[in-house]
């Protein structure tokens, strides 16, 4: 790691032991004793294996793996699976020190030992590599190197600079010593784990008390259609970082909500921009999409959100008599009519199909009415009833046509049944006639 440019201040790791024995002894004495025992054991092992002192030797691991205190044992224990370890980095690349020295001197400032970095310095420590694009591309040519600059623009980064040590830094989200690649499903920053990772702080009311922001975001998000889609394994579904950013995490402002939603819901955003709501919302200081759909608890919308019914979101702002109210009412009626037309046609066609009638063509036709309904639901975002009617009207005609085909199939079924009845009666009469004829012939033959 010759590319390191920044040398920070670090504090010693071994202070404040909590073991009972440590409580009775001065901290420094305890460290010396323990290190001496560990060193002796390592030396015995080293003699046996006769390993070369300078070829991949790591005295940090040798000692720390023998420690009983989880705080000093775990970093060594977990580091084996760490993405950095797999890329060839060792303890000294972050903590400094001399890995060839088996004595406690390995952790002396003279040997460049830095200890545990202070929280405020963690972003800079990580950035020594992660902001060096030439260095990072040796491992992954697609890797970005702007995490630190983004972080400094985030609320987390800004507050850290202001001395707030409670905010998240790199290790709070990515973990430390057992850092996994983002693509690893076990990583805390893998899409399906992001909400839980953010929620570790943001759902902790006590921890977030000083910031005076809600702590129900993750709970609300879990009710959302986004969380449900993600849970089904669709990792393209949005999680916290999709809307808020990851390293540059910032809540979207009122004016930019539509832009954020529009990164995925492009067509809806375009319709909203051209709609009368765009200017009205801006004037009233209302956040675009969120106003009707909420922010974190974005549930699957239903048709009764449109209109003037009890579940309507339109009546939040519009009241009886205004143009928006009338438009909402008209749009709701159009959607309801098309929905009803489709349902009726489906019922008739299903009944005919169950009775064995061939109705695959009208069923295919009806799928166009379904498409019209979906498109009409999108066009609701024009907030103009005439636009919605343009879509629902042809949809209704298609549904009516399919419905007629279903009714015709059922009528045909009825004709078939009647025809069958008449045919069976005719056949029965013929059979009886034949039977009587046979009897007549045979009685004549016997006579």
């Amino acid at each position, binding site marked *: 790691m010759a590319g390191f440019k920044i040398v920070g201040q670090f504090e010693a790791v071994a202070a404040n032991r909590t073991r009972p024995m440590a409580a009775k002894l001065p901290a420094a004495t305890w460290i010396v004793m323990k290190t001496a025992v560990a060193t002796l054991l390592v030396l015995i092992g080293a003699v046996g294996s006769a390993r070369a002192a300078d070829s991949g030797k790591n005295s940090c691991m040798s000692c720390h793996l023998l420690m009983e205190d989880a705080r000093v044992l775990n970093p060594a224990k977990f580091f084996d699976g760490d993405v950095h370890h797999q890329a060839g980095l060792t303890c000294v690349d972050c903590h400094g020190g001399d890995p060839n020295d088996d004595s406690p001197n390995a952790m002396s400032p003279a040997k460049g030992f830095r200890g545990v970095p202070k929280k405020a310095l963690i972003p800079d420590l990580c950035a020594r590599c992660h902001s060096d694009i030439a260095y990072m591309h040796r491992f992954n040519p697609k890797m970005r190197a702007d995490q630190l600059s983004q972080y400094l623009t985030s609320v987390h980064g800004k507050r850290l600079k202001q001395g707030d040590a409670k905010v998240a830094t790199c290790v709070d989200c990515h973990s430390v010593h057992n850092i996994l690649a983002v693509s690893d499903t076990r990583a805390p920053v893998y899409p399906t784990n992001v909400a839980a990772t953010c929620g570790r702080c943001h759902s902790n009311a006590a921890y977030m008390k000083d910031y005076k922001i809600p702590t129900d975001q993750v709970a609300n998000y879990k009710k959302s259609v986004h969380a449900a889609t993600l849970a089904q394994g669709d990792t393209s579904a949005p999680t916290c970082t999709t809307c808020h950013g990851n390293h540059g995490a910032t809540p979207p402002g009122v004016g930019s909500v539509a832009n954020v939603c529009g990164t995925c819901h492009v067509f809806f955003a375009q319709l909203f921009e051209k709609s009368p709501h765009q200017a009205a919302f801006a004037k009233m200081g209302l956040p675009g999409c969120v106003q009707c759909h909420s922010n974190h608890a974005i549930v699957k919308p239903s048709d009764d959100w449109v209109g003037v019914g009890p579940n309507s979101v339109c009546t939040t702002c519009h009241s009886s008599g205004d143009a928006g109210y009338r438009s909402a009412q008209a749009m709701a009626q159009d959607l309801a009519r098309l929905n009803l037309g489709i349902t009726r046609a489906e019922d008739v066609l299903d009944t005919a199909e169950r009775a064995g009638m*061939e109705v*695959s063509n009208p069923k295919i036709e009806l799928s166009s009415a379904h498409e019209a309904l979906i498109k009409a639901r999108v066009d609701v975002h024009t907030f103009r009833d005439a636009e919605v009617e343009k879509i629902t009207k042809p949809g209704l005609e298609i549904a009516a046509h399919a419905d007629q085909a279903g009714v015709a199939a059922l009528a045909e079924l009825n004709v078939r049944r009647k025809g*069958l009845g008449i045919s069976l009666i005719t*056949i029965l009469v013929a*059979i009886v006639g034949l039977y009587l*004829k*046979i009897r007549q*012939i045979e009685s004549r033959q016997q006579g």
Partner: protein
Amino acid sequence: MSSLFRRTLDWLDERFGAGSIEEFLRHKTVPIHKHSVWYYFGGMTLFLFVVQVLTGILLLLYYRPTPNDAFESVQYLMTQVRFGWLIRSVHSWSANLMILAAFIHMFSVYFLKAYRKPRELTWITGMLLLFIVMGFGFSGYLLPWNTLAFFATKVGTEMAGSIPIVGKWFLVFLRGGDEVTGATLTRFFGFHVAVLPGLATTLLALHLLLVQTLGMSVPPGVERAIAEGRQPRRSMPFVPNFFLRDAIGWYAALGVLGALAAIFPWELGVKADPFAAAPAGIRPEWYFLFVFQTLKYIPAKVFFIDGELLGIFGFSAAALIWVAIPFLDRRVGFAPLTRFFTGLGIFVIGYMIVLSWLALR
């Protein structure tokens, strides 16, 4: 009218001796005994065959044997053509009932030992007709070009491909290439409407000629009882007594066909997509189920022999033995042998029913 009919017969008699046919029919009789009911199944199979021919010709007016048109043409026939649905459903139901009637006819002949001398050729032509009828079923199944038929044909023709030496050639011959494609559809259509009907008509003519020439067989037990004077030899004239009884059966069959077609119209399914994955639960028509299930139970390798190949050889050998039954069961009246062949027949029926049931589970 009667005099016109008489004059026509006389006219024909003067030209090719049609009077001898009339004379033959006037004197032809059918034995009456406790097993006479089984005599009707031959006529029933023949009637259903005639229904197949007539409905098949009507289907030909609309059917187009190409992958792009086959499904659509059947769909059009079922939805747009007046009574098209009835013709197609009757054709499909009648095909299945014909195979059922043929099986019942075959087993009744087997158990009543009607194949014994001098009727060996009647049995052999009957068995060949049964194989041809199953060929009709196999080739006709693909023609609507729906998903189930497509994949069932794929599996069925693959079995043919596993025969050593000629297997590959036979598979290509059946499919018209390495895969089931439009070429297979055209080929199966040709088999179904030209090759098989030609063979079936020839064999049927021979079979009927043999039946008429040799007369109906009387079961050995009944023959013995007559010889020992335990029962009189009774018979009825073929025309009109037996023929009118046959006609009652045919009318009843027509009613059943109409009811099945109206209440359970034959499904069309979904158009075949050669690039789609095979749907779950692919299985052949019911009369091939016992073969299909047996092949599933045979391990992949049996003593270094391919399991599927062994199964095909097994069934081919069994079919050959079954065809050769008249030459194996020659000592009629020898009780142990009679019991053995009766037991064999019961075993074969039981095997077919149990294996088919297992395949349907």
